């Protein structure tokens, strides 16, 4: 078919589009690279257009590959962590120019597109402005048209299309980015920046109260029937009785409510000498609208996020938490917190109201007992005595503790813990209330603990001279199920919660602002590179093992992944090679069956046709050859010999 004025050869279109894409990649980084590189690229690019028109190749591929390799080595020598982007971009530009000089096959065009896109990405790292968005948009449209044209080219290299067909092709190719851009925007830009969970319906739309600076007796009972997940902790499974999630310490009791009188800001710079199992974990905390962070009792290290650490091993944010956050932590699982000096007065404070009945009871229980035995006795009295656990109809009166101990005889953890703390203090043992969560259900699928609001809990810490703080939990453990077994519908919830968890984790790990500020810092620090031969030599020597490793990885990837042939390709190559040996060579444009029918020797022809029919029955039905099919065909080939 003659190439008339109204027709275009597909190869010309593909070439033209690759020039356009290459130039766009170059323009995007033009301002940020050295003039030498720009001139070098422009010259090679002009040469390649000239040679393309003349249909000649100035240098063999191997020579160009050596050049490319040399440039990669030079880039490697110039590479530093302080200035990582510019040398990479400049090298990519030279590689692009060399690619243009090569005789271009389909994979070379694909490489040109890839390098151009990398250049554009590099431009965003060097200077991010609105121009990038424009370049990106143009690049997306050009790439779509180019790849579709390349697909045509791959089908028939000599294809000549009418101008109308080209027009239709270009117009329809623009549908692809038109569809891709909104999807991309939704998936990669909007969603990672919203803290809205995908499966929000799992969480009830209730205002989360949680813990505040003061806890009124009976105040968290509402929370204790709320199944909303307050946090998820990525951690290995731990025995349920060890799961105390520490959040707040309350030391001042006015007779009705507990509050924090002001913990000392931590002055400890070294890690505490706590004995026990050390464990690291990541907490994904839902918006709680207070400042408290929760850690597995006892948190062991100081944390890099902006928070205030207190001596009582609690941590607060500077502002109320109104978004989902994540933080990494480490704890030592222990019931004891060794501490030598404490303000005893603070932890022996008693309300002004006299609790004569309670006082009498304390005397009765702890008579003739030392401090530790007294604490054990009080614990026994509350935990294993006549008292029952309940979250309903709690004694919310003017003397709630007395009512709890002598009238109602039931209450939730607040009543038990308050009673014990008060009784300890009456006995002269410094004590405080610790608030947080207990237990949680372990999601084996996602390998994390989910802690619902209803697991809100308070317990007691008592201080013994020269020993430190000991944890006591006077709430009857059988009453409150903090680590429920999940069945039926709950299992479905676990699956959905796992998806939710991973989604949240993905978003919270995706801190774009932080990345950009880091990159900006890099950009500011970028200096014009000065080539110091001695330094380069030193770095090269240092980096030789890495370079060799890198080359090996690239070679491995190339030969074992990219070059790895499919069963179809392998068997067909073997068949054609065998036929060639027998003197029958398949023409490029010849159909397989057509080729087979031409074979003169009857026996070979019949076998070849059978082989091809079986091969085609897979290939044209879009069925992949299995290992068995491959071996079956291979056996047939053997019989062909």
């Amino acid at each position, binding site marked *: 078919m003659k190439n008339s004025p109204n027709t275009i050869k597909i190869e010309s279109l593909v070439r033209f589009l690759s020039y356009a894409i290459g130039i766009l990649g170059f323009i995007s980084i033009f301002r940020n690279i050295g003039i030498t590189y720009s001139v070098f690229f422009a010259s090679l690019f002009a040469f390649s257009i000239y040679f393309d028109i003349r249909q000649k190749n100035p240098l063999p591929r191997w020579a160009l590959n050596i050049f490319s390799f040399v440039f990669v080595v030079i880039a490697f020598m110039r590479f530093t962590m302080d200035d990582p982007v510019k040398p990479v971009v400049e090298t990519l530009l030279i590689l692009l120019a060399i690619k243009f000089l090569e005789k271009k096959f*389909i994979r070379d065009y694909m490489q040109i597109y890839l390098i151009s896109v990398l250049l554009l990405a590099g431009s965003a790292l060097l200077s991010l402005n609105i121009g990038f968005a424009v370049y990106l948009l143009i690049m997306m449209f050009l790439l*779509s048209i180019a*790849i*579709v044209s*390349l*697909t*045509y080219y*791959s*089908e*028939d290299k000599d*294809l000549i*299309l009418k101008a109308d*067909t080209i027009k*239709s*092709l270009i117009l*329809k*190719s623009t*549908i*692809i980015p038109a*569809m*891709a851009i909104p*999807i991309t925007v939704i998936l990669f830009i909007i969603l990672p920046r919203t803290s809205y969970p995908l499966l929000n319906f799992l969480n009830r739309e209730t205002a989360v109260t949680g813990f505040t600076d003061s806890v009124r007796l009976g105040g968290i009972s509402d929370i204790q029937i709320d199944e909303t997940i307050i946090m998820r902790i990525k951690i290995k499974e731990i025995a349920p009785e060890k799961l105390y999630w520490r959040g707040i310490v309350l030391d001042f009791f006015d007779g009705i409510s507990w509050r924090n009188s002001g913990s000392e800001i931590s002055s400890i710079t070294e890690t505490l000498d706590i004995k026990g199992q050390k464990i690291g974990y990541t907490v994904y905390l839902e918006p709680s609208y207070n400042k408290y962070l929760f850690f597995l009792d006892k948190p062991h290290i100081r944390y890099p996020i902006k928070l205030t650490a207190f001596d009582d091993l609690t941590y607060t944010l500077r502002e109320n938490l109104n978004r989902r956050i994540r933080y990494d932590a480490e704890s030592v699982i222990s019931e004891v917190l060794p501490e030598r000096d404490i303000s005893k007065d603070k932890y022996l404070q008693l309300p002004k109201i006299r609790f004569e009945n309670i006082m009498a009871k304390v005397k009765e229980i702890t008579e003739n007992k030392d401090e530790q035995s007294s604490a054990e006795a009080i614990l026994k009295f509350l935990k294993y005595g006549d008292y029952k656990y309940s979250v309903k109809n709690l004694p919310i009166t003017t003397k709630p503790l007395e009512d709890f101990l002598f009238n109602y005889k039931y209450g939730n953890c607040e009543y038990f813990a308050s009673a014990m703390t008060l009784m300890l203090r009456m006995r002269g043992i410094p004590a405080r209330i610790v608030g947080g969560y207990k237990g949680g259900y372990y999601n084996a699928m996602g390998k994390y603990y989910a802690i619902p609001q209803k697991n809100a809990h308070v317990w007691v810490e008592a201080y013994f001279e020269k020993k430190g703080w000991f944890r006591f939990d006077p709430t009857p453990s059988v009453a409150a199920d903090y680590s429920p077994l999940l069945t039926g519908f709950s299992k479905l919830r676990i699956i959905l919660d796992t998806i939710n968890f991973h989604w949240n984790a993905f978003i919270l790990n995706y801190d774009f602002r932080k990345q950009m500020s880091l990159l900006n810092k890099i950009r500011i620090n970028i200096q014009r590179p000065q080539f110091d031969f001695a330094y380069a030599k030193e770095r090269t020597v240092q980096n030789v093992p890495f370079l060799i490793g890198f080359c090996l990885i690239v070679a491995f990837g190339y030969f074992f992944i990219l070059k790895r042939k499919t069963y179809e390709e392998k068997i067909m190559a073997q068949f054609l090679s065998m036929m060639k040996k027998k003197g029958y060579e398949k023409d490029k444009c010849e*159909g*397989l*069956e*057509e080729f*087979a*029918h031409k074979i003169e020797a009857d026996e070979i022809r019949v076998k070849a046709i059978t082989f*091809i029919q079986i091969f*085609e029955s897979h290939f*044209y*039905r*879009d069925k992949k050859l299995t290992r068995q099919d491959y071996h079956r065909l291979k056996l047939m080939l053997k019989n062909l010999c």
Partner: protein
Amino acid sequence: MIISGYLSRANFAKIHIEVEVPDEIYANSEFVLKLRLINKKRFIPAFLIRTNLLGKEILFPIVQRNNFEIGYLSFQFPRRGKLSIEQILLCSVFPFNFFVKGCEMKKDIEFIVFPQMKKCVHSSYLEHDKKLTGDRSTMRHGFDSEPIFIRDYVDGDPLKYIHWKASAKTGKLKTKELSSQSYKPIIIDFESFWIKDTEEKISCIAYIINSSFKKGVSVGLKINGEFYKDGISRQHKINMLKALALYEK
């Protein structure tokens, strides 16, 4: 990838293919199958569809919406007999060459490959036969026999048919219109035909039938207990060739 998959799937929507088989296909003679790829999509063209028919491929770069494209595939079958097209395979790497989307169109097309025509000694049979039986003039136009009438010369008329006498009289070139000769009908008896080798015999008879038809000689055939009475129609010829093609098949 999602978009590529979606477009690849959409590309095959509302695609139909029709095949046109010629009436006469002879073994070992090249012939052409006509493929019509129809795109019934209302809004978008069909791109880059490769069809595979009996192992031969043809690429349709584009078929505009509500439109069709025609492609031709040439074939040559070595043996006579019945052949069928049960399926046509369509595949496309559109849009990104990431996947090959394939689609199988079921078809039920049967056609018969007539025997290869081989000029044999018996082809002189016609002349020999004619001499034996004598000529018979008909009123059909031809250049064989007696003049029927004289007409004006038309470019291309052989010189030997110019009626010189009439031309001289009228001052204009005149051509003699002669009657064509008809031959005595030939009846071929397959069983008693003198060639022994079946395939050779079939090829020779096919040649005789064809060449007789071209000359307007009425031919009949006795084969496999069936008798095709002599005739000169095209359908008659095709029926006889079919009988030959399917002999012992």
